Each structure stands twice: as C-alpha cells, then as structure tokens.
C-alpha cells in the first residue's frame, strides 16, 4: 500500500484518518490540492507541524468553491481565526464535513453555523434575509423576501422565540430528504 510518502509521519496520518472521513489516499490527495493553491507557502514536509495558513483569497479561488455564494461563510466557519485563513487542518476538516460520508448531524451543525451570519448561535430574520439574497442573487422583491422569511420562521421555529436555534434547524433538516446530497462538495 505504498508507505513511501514523507509528508506526514505515520502517526499523523493515522490521526487524520481517525479525525476525518477520508482514507489515507484521499488525505494525501487533499494535501496535494492544498499545496497546489500556494506551492511556495506550503512546505512538503509536515512532520514538524509547521504553522502555515493560506489566506482566504486563495481558498476562495478553488474551482469547487469559487462560484459558491456561501464560500466566505464556509471559510470563516471552518477557519481557526474566523476570518477565512485556513491551515491544512481546517482545510481537511472542511472537506471532511462536506464529503458524502459525513452523517447528517455534523453537517446540520456546520450548516447552521454557515447560515448564522452574525455568529450569535441563532438564525434570526436578518440572517435569513442575507441567506435569501445570496441564494437568489437579490432578485426577490422586498415583499417576497419578507414573506419568505416569515414563512420559514413559521415553519421551523418550534420554541416560538422568533428565531431558529440549532435544535429547530436540526429538526427541520431531518425532514429534508435532499440535505445530505446538496450539502456535499466532491473533491
């Protein structure tokens, strides 16, 4: 099974395999993708665990992400500093959650964080409006936006506090059959 790679120690690779939904081959392939974004910044030897962060602009220019209207939020949620600058760990984490093996719960947790624009652990009306505008390229009229936001909160808010908590979101996602297949990036 080709143990000839020198990028990671065997221990590191095992740790990555246990902490993500990727196999050995996939982790090495993802490392190559990460390195391709900035070959001069990313060293070929990760055995000493260098502290390398790629800026958000490079991450956002990946073909899988560059057309996604939520790419900035995705990068912010998964990055350590909350600004979108990602280390290799963050990178692997992000694609692990977005892979097809990740179960519904963890996807729902991170999807909730992505749609929570103001990071207050609730999806309130303003978060919903921002989401809608990103989804439809701001082509809905103000009236329509307002109506849709009202309807969404009506349908999903179970504890009647006018905003969606994580439980409300997860409860709604369970009833959505497409969630697992849409919250999925192939890499």
């Amino acid at each position: 099974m080709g143990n000839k790679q020198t990028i990671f120690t065997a221990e590191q690779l095992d740790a990555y395999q246990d902490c993500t939904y990727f196999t050995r081959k996939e982790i090495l392939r993802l490392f190559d993708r990460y390195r391709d974004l900035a070959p001069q910044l990313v060293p070929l030897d990760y055995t000493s665990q260098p502290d390398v962060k790629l800026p958000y602009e490079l991450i956002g220019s990946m073909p899988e992400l560059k057309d996604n209207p939520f790419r900035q939020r995705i990068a912010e949620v998964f990055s350590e500093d909350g600004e979108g600058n990602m280390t290799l760990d963050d990178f692997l984490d992000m694609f692990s959650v977005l892979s097809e093996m990740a179960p519904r719960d963890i996807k729902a947790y991170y999807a909730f964080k992505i749609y929570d624009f103001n990071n207050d652990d609730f999806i309130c009306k303003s978060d919903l409006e921002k989401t809608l505008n990103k989804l439809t390229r701001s082509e809905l009229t103000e009236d329509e936006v307002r109506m849709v936001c009202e309807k969404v909160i009506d349908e999903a808010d179970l504890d009647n506090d006018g905003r969606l908590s994580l439980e409300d979101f997860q409860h709604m996602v369970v009833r959505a059959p497409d969630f697992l297949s849409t919250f999925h990036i192939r890499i």
Partner: protein
Amino acid sequence: MSSEPQRRGSREAYDYDEGNGYPSEQHALRLRWVSSRASNQSYPQHDLSSTPAEENEEGDSGPPRDLRAIPLPMALKRAVRQVQQMQVPVVSSRQSWRRKRTKSLHELKEKARESLYFFTLWRKSLQKIGGNFGGGVQSYFLFLRFLVVLNFVSFLLIAGFVLIPSIVFRSAGTSLINSTGPDECKVYDPNSQGLVEFYKYFLDLLSGTGFMEYSYLFYGYYSNTMVENRNVSYNIPLAYLFTAIFYFVFCLICIIARMGTTARVAVATGGSAVGNYSVIVFTGWDYGCQGDRATKLKQKNVHYRLQVDLEEESRKKRAAALTLCQKIALYSLRVFMCFVAFGLIIAAFYGIFVATNFSQTKSGEEGILGLFFEYLPSIVITTGNFVVPLLCDQIALLERYTPSTTVIVALLRAVFLRLVSLGVLLFTLWDQITCKGDIDSHDCKLCQYNYKVHPCWETRVGQEMYKLTMFDLLVNIALLVLVEFPRRMVVDNWSSKLAQWVGRQEFVVSTNVLGLVYGQTVVWTGALFCPLLPLINTIKFVLLFYFRKVTLFYNCRPALKTFRSTTSTFFFLVVLTFGWCLATAVMIYSLAEIRPSMGCGPFRFFPSMWSIVPTSFYRLSTITQDFLFFIGSQAFSIPLFALSCVVMCYFIALASVYGKSVALLRAQLKLEGRDKQFLVKQIEKLSRQHQILKHTAGAYE
C-alpha cells in the same frame, strides 16, 4: 484520571455491535451535548472532566466514527484522540476481541466500499450531470442506469438457463410428448423464400422477419426436447417457462428493493408538504454546483421555486375566496376538460386498433411499402404518444389547477395513454390470434388459434414487440439528428424573434422517464416470446444514455421547473410497477389460456404452456412429490399465511408506535419552548421586584 472508573463501568452499557447505526439514546445524548456546547461560543471548549454520560461517548475507543462526528476543530480532536489513546483500557479479553473484530469489520467494509465505488457504471458522467443540471435530471439518468443493469442481469439469467442449454443440446434430446393434433396446424415454414435481394436483409433486420424469424431471437426456434444422459438431465421447455416466471419475479424484487431505499427517506421526512420554504432555503443550494453558468442557473431555479410556492399560496387564497357561482363554473369546466382529454385518448386507441388491423391485412406486401405497413402500429402509437400529451398540456392550462397539480395530472394522463395504447395493440393481436375469443369459429376451430394467419403466433407477438423496441430506438436517433441538433444550431446562429421565442430545448424529465417506462414494459411483455429482447434492450438503453448525455450537454438548457428529486424517483418506480403489472397480466394470460402453436416452439403439442409443470412434476420421485404436495396443502399454507399476517401486524404496530412517539416528542419540544419563555418572564418579573425592593429599602435609609 478520576473519571476513569465511571467510564469503564458504563462502557458495558453500550453495545457497539450494532454495525452502522448508533443506539438511539446515544444519538439523543450527542445532540444535547452538541447543543449545550453550541450555546457557549463558536468553538466549544472541550471539557474532559464533564459529566460521565458525556464521557462515555468519547471514552469508548472502539469505532473511530465517534471522533469524526464531534464538531470540533482538528487540533482539539487530535487532543481528544491522544487522551483516548493514553488511557490504558483494562478490559476483558472477550471485550478486546470484540473491539478488534468490529474494527477489522469496519476496515473491511471501507475497502469493499472503495472497490465497489470503482466498479460503479458511469459514476463520473452522473456526477457531472448532477453538478451542472441538478438532481431532477440526474435522477433520470440514475433510473436509466438502474434499467440497464436490470436488463443486463436478466439477460445473463436467460442466457444461462435457456439460451446456452438450447445451443448445447440442440441436436441431442428427445421430445417430451408425442405429436398430437391435426397436421395442418403443424405447418410452419419460415425460410421458404430461397434467394432474396440484398436490401431485404436490412428490412428483415428491422422487422424481425425472414432470416431473423427462425433464430434464437424468437420463441419458434426453441425445441421442446428434454435431454437425459447419465450425467445431465435438462428439461428445456420447463427451463424456458421457469426462467420467464423467475425473470418477472426478479424484476419485481429489484424494483421493490429500490423503492424501499427511496421510500425510507420519504417516510423519515414525514412526507408532508409542510416545511416547504425552509427546505428550499436551507437545502435548496447544491454545494456541489460548479461553474459560473450553472451557479446562475441554480440561483434562478431557487428563485423560481420560491416564486412558484408564493404564487400557489396566493392562488389558494384566491380559490378559497371564490363565490359559489364561480366555484361551480370552475368545477364544471374541469369535468368537461377531463372528458375532452379522455375523448382524445380514446380516439388515439381507436386509431391504434384500426392501424393494427390494417397492417395485418397488408402483411404480404414487399419492399419499403411492406416495411411501412409492418411498422404502422408503432408509428401510430408513437404519433399518439407525442400529439396527445401536447393537447393534454393545453387542456391542463385551461383547467387552472395549481402548478404542481398540473404537472402530476399531465403525467398521469400521459402514463395512462402510453400503457393502455400498448394494451390496445396487444388486444388487437389477441383478437386476431384467437378469432375474437371465439374458439369455435371457422378459422380457429381446428387448432384453437388462427393457424392460417399465424402458424406460429408466439413468434408473431415477439416480432411486434421487437419492432416496437427498434422503432423507439430509431425515432430517438432520428429526433436527435434531425430535430435537436438543427434546433440548437438555428437558435444559436439565427438571432430573430422567432428563434428566441422557440429557444433552446429544455430537458423535460417526466416525458423522458415515461419513454423509458414504456420501453421497459414492451420488453417485459415480449420477453416470453423473444428471449433475447433484454439483451437488445440493454444495448438500446446504453446507446440511449450516451445520446441523451450528448443532447443534454450540447443542445439543452436546464429546465426552470424542477421536480423534487427524491419523491420523483419513487414516482418513476411506481409507474414502472404499473408497466410490470400489465406485462405480467399478458404473460399469465398467454401461459394459461391460449393454446401454444403446434408448429414451433418448446411447448408444441401441450394444451397450454403451463401444463408442462404438472407433466414434469409427475416425473419427480415420490418423496419430492409428497413433499411438494404437503407444501401446497392447507395444512402448511394456512399456518404460513397466519404467521405472515402476525409478522405484518407486528411491523405495522411498530411503525405506528414510532409515528406516535415522533408526534409526541414534537409536541413536547413545543411545550418546552413555551415553558422556557414562561420561566424567563418569571425571572424578569422577580428580578424587577427585587430591584424595586432594593430601591425602596435604599430610599428608607
């Protein structure tokens, strides 16, 4: 660590031999754990000395899935992992053996999944299609792939049990029963032409006559012999019959298995239309969508879906606000339009009936005109299937249903049209073969079927099905070359109002799926009479996959109106089951009621196709016969029936209990939310009172 003894003790409470699923209590615990962390900050602090219940989840170092499902950043997960590994689990050897076994099983499953992944047919194409055109179009191609695999496996089945033994034992073997019956019925001479023109080979290829008629392709070529050496004994007619029956059963099992996986998803979501908007907003965006154009289209799609839903709401409000007079007018209009649609469909059926009869009377013609007359039923069916749905669409517009109802109504009408038009064709054939059901009429009296027109009627039916299949493929190729590519070239290069109004072609999923269901129903109907038809259909569907893919990428723009992909897969399979039922009805009728031809085929000289089973049955040993009689008797079947009723009742009760507990939990969630609000208000009130008291106390000083 202090929490270790607790961890060890409660580890036994969890049984990890469940394979994939987590035990439900653990699931609920994890949710609560996740939510309690979520309410702290964006990255929850990992607290190793938290309560024992939480500890037990990470404490078990068995399946590594637990670690991956924790929503922590990588560095913290690695810390947790280190902690897990540092603890030296003092467990019994049995437990450690169990844990090793689950781990190796897990690894084996992963390896198997990886290798299966490699073998999946057309994986990359389907990914590309899904990314560019969305779930609805992808579900069509997934359905097509399912049918290709089904047909190929059926062909292997038929080849293994019927074709290859027939080829091997062609000359060997003795006839099963002696030839009985009048000699006129046994006359069957398909190769009587002698020298033929070259182009006739091509015509024969398309219509299954001539050199193709007396070949392994059709029923008539198979012999009714049974081979019985010292080493091997093989009863070809029995094998033919049982393979045909098993083929149908196998297809049904495959369809139901596939329905089961999609239905499970539908049931889990409650199947209600509530949650429409939230589902569109939060799960409508496909994160796998790549490319600027695809993204813009997807955004337009989401916009359209939201608009359609809002419009349906306003339409419902308007419909509720109608006066009584207007309601009556609307309903009578709908009933009238229903009759009009029905009338159109009946007209199409009559057209098919007339065309088939006409084609029969002209069956002796030569050349291209002869080919035209041969294909006349197929031509009429295809024209009807094209024209009538167009008219039905216009009718549906007049009926002013909501958009989603319109789509379903149009689809059901088209399904009805397609399947019943096939039924009409079969009815016409039956008419001719059995002299309108009247066995004692002049033509049918001698052999109980019309031996003059159809000396080998099974081959004739097989030929009709073969022609339908070939014609379908030819029409698809012709449409691709003559309509779709030119349309795109005209629209792209000629910028006039007309061209823009016509626009690029839209890939309409439902019509294409109906075409597939129709093709598959034809194959099922014809499989008994034309054993190689599944192979021909496999090739046809493979070609169709590539043609459709080409036309999708070059000629089509994605449809603005989309079908919700999971429910529609279920709907496709339900429609496919209708087709299966039609084919099964035909098969059962031909097996039981019509007398097989005496001049050809493996069932000649038998009074019916089914009667070979009793004949072969009595050749078995007495013990086997007694055993089989016992299984069929009441002493066995009634207890078996009772037992299966009990098992079914148990599952129904279980399902209803789960449904009730889901509803109860949902209500409980609502109540807890209200309790929380009430308590928050009480706290505010009390703190205000406390403030007031403090102020008044301070004022007194």
